[in-house]
């Protein structure tokens, strides 16, 4: 056990799986850097350094810098997965999905189904998401709801370094295509992470706080904000249950329904745009299954329905905050709070 950053946790998971299974390869733009050029090798290690050190250890055969063509290398990774390798491909920013989405949703996601269950596609796509990095509207989006929509894809959103290592390891060991979302504003956040390898099963939510008054369901980086809001509210006697579903597909509906039934109140926190996102999905689930258990209308805390602003002041306003979460909790509790 030692203190590791969110960045190191991903790196260690990939490295340990590459050591354990020689079929695991990694590929993407500048994931090492310097391939085929006379300059410094492994100068980049990925645009934010997550894959640094893998090429020197495993060589160019297993760590591939690719051309700037997402449709080519994501398609290549899907094919490699279908023919026996276990590729971990980096789609640098999820905002770039547009140029390679056919390879993901109409090819990789469909292979098992279209080939009558005879094909497996152990493909992992790592991708960065999220605002707060001053990277403007084309490099800051939270597009996981789009992937969650597609049957045949699994979608994971690690909310801290411990979760990052376990979910990354599980993604590599899974026989279906998995898209794992790394929040770019969290790479330097540190915590105790075991040195040994471990996987966290998909579809098992993590209940990070237990309370009586309101259930908060939050995704990815928003889990930390929900925890902070819950801790702050407990000082004024309001106790919250916080649920981190960990994966949006598969989704642990059982834990969500059970914890919302207990408190009778739900606030969903989702950094994605408010239409057709995880917050609307969870709200629909709860109102369809346990409407009679609700003591108050469901409240969603999301970003607004507009592109991520480049102005730092506006970007800060755009992202859900602990203050907005606390206000939503007080609102569902009604007057007097």
């Amino acid at each position: 056990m030692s203190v590791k950053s969110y960045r190191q946790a991903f790196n260690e998971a990939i490295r340990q799986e590459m050591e354990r299974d020689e079929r695991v390869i990694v590929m993407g733009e500048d994931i090492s850097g310097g391939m085929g050029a006379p300059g410094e090798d492994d100068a980049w290690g990925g645009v934010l350094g997550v894959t640094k050190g893998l090429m020197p250890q495993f060589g160019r055969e297993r760590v591939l810098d690719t051309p700037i063509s997402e449709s080519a290398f994501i398609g290549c990774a899907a094919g490699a997965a279908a023919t026996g390798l276990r590729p971990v491909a980096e789609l640098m920013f999820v905002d770039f999905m547009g140029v390679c989405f056919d390879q993901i949703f109409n090819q990789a996601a469909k292979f098992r189904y279209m080939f009558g269950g005879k094909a497996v596609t152990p493909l992992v796509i790592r991708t960065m998401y999220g605002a707060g990095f001053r990277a403007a509207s084309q490099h800051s989006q939270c597009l996981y709801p789009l992937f969650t929509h597609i049957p045949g894809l699994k979608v994971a959103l690690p909310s801290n370094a411990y979760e990052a290592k376990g979910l990354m390891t599980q993604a590599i060991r899974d026989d279906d295509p998995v898209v794992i979302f790394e929040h770019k504003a969290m790479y330097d956040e540190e915590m105790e992470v075991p040195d040994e390898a471990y996987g966290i099963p998909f579809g098992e939510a993590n209940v990070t706080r237990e309370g009586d008054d309101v259930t908060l369901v939050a995704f990815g980086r928003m889990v930390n904000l929900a925890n902070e809001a819950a801790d702050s509210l407990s000082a004024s006697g309001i106790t919250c249950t916080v649920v981190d579903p960990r994966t949006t597909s598969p989704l642990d509906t059982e834990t969500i329904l059970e914890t919302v039934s207990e408190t009778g109140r739900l606030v969903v926190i989702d950094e994605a745009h408010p239409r057709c996102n995880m917050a609307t999905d969870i709200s629909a689930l709860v109102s369809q299954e346990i409407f009679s258990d609700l003591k108050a209308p469901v409240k969603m805390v999301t970003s607004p329905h507009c592109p991520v602003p480049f102005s730092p002041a506006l970007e800060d306003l755009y992202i859900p905050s602990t203050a907005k979460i606390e206000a939503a909790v007080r609102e569902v509790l009604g007057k007097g709070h």
Partner: protein
Amino acid sequence: MSGNIEPILMPKWGLAMEEGMLVEWQVEEGDTIEKGQEIADIETTKITNAFESPMSGQLRRFVTMDGETVPVGFLLAVCAEDDVDDAEIDGYVRDFKDNFVLDEAAAGAAEPETVEILPGQSIRYMTMGSGGAEPILFVHGFGGGFDNWMLNQEALSENLQTYAVDLPGHGGSTKQVGDGDLASMTDMLHSFMTVMKIERAHLVGHSMGGGIALDLAYRYPSQVASLSLIAPVGFGSDINMEYIDGFITQTRARKLRAVIELLVDDPTGISPDMIEEIIKYKRLDGVGPALERLRDSIMPNGQQARLLNDRLDDLVVPAQVFWGQNDKIIPASHAEGLPERIRVNLYDNTGHMPHMERANEVNALISAIANG
């Protein structure tokens, strides 16, 4: 005069403890307290437990009040004789607070270490204290780890060196458990003693670890100075498989909590962090198969495979047995009919964990046997 003023400090229970909350004082200012008396309830992120006074004297002043959270090593209260006046106590408390620095090194002083017992197979252990002819060696039970002795090891390390191991398949040790039976676990514990040059030790074993300790005493009688067995396996065929199977299979906090609660008589002290730590341990590569192998070898078909109590008359070393009357894992009736020279200590309102639930009493008896 302040030489007559004695501080009572926030204890350190286990590796992860950095601070603790004084839930409630169980005594009043002005009371005369005895060493070992339960004087307060203290809550850590892992556990809530009774705090036993480290000294006898007159408790003159509470410094940490009910509900306050303070770092390990901070002043909880002050003891002093009648002839020390209040102003001196005020000065002592003020000096303590002025000079108190959060010593992270001291708060986390002891760190576990790792040693290789066979090529590629290592054992993690915690050692504390020094001195004494023979050290104490703590051996935990199924699914446990060295931190199970958080209320015992430090207390018993005052004048002896102590070791607490993670058994194979557990904690930070190798996840290879050989055949998974008691004999192979004994072999690996004996290898640990050999590598660590522990020629002879006072063995303290809990549950499965009690069976291992007893097996080691039979096979290497010259290397065991005394035996303290806490709710050990090997004294009868009963074992609660609901606990064993639940521990292996439950991956969710709530369902696992219901299983872990079987361990103790009063489950309110079990914190969410403790459950979370067990879940994290169970996720480590190799742990699932290791636990299943131990279960299948040591308790196949829902019963304990090996009885060890038929040879108790052969034992030459001092031995004592501890059992909670309300043990829901291995019944206290297994402590009946033992040879007279083995002291049996039974505790009311206590479950499978007397070393945690009755830490002071158990510590005193282990100290007595280990210090001759």
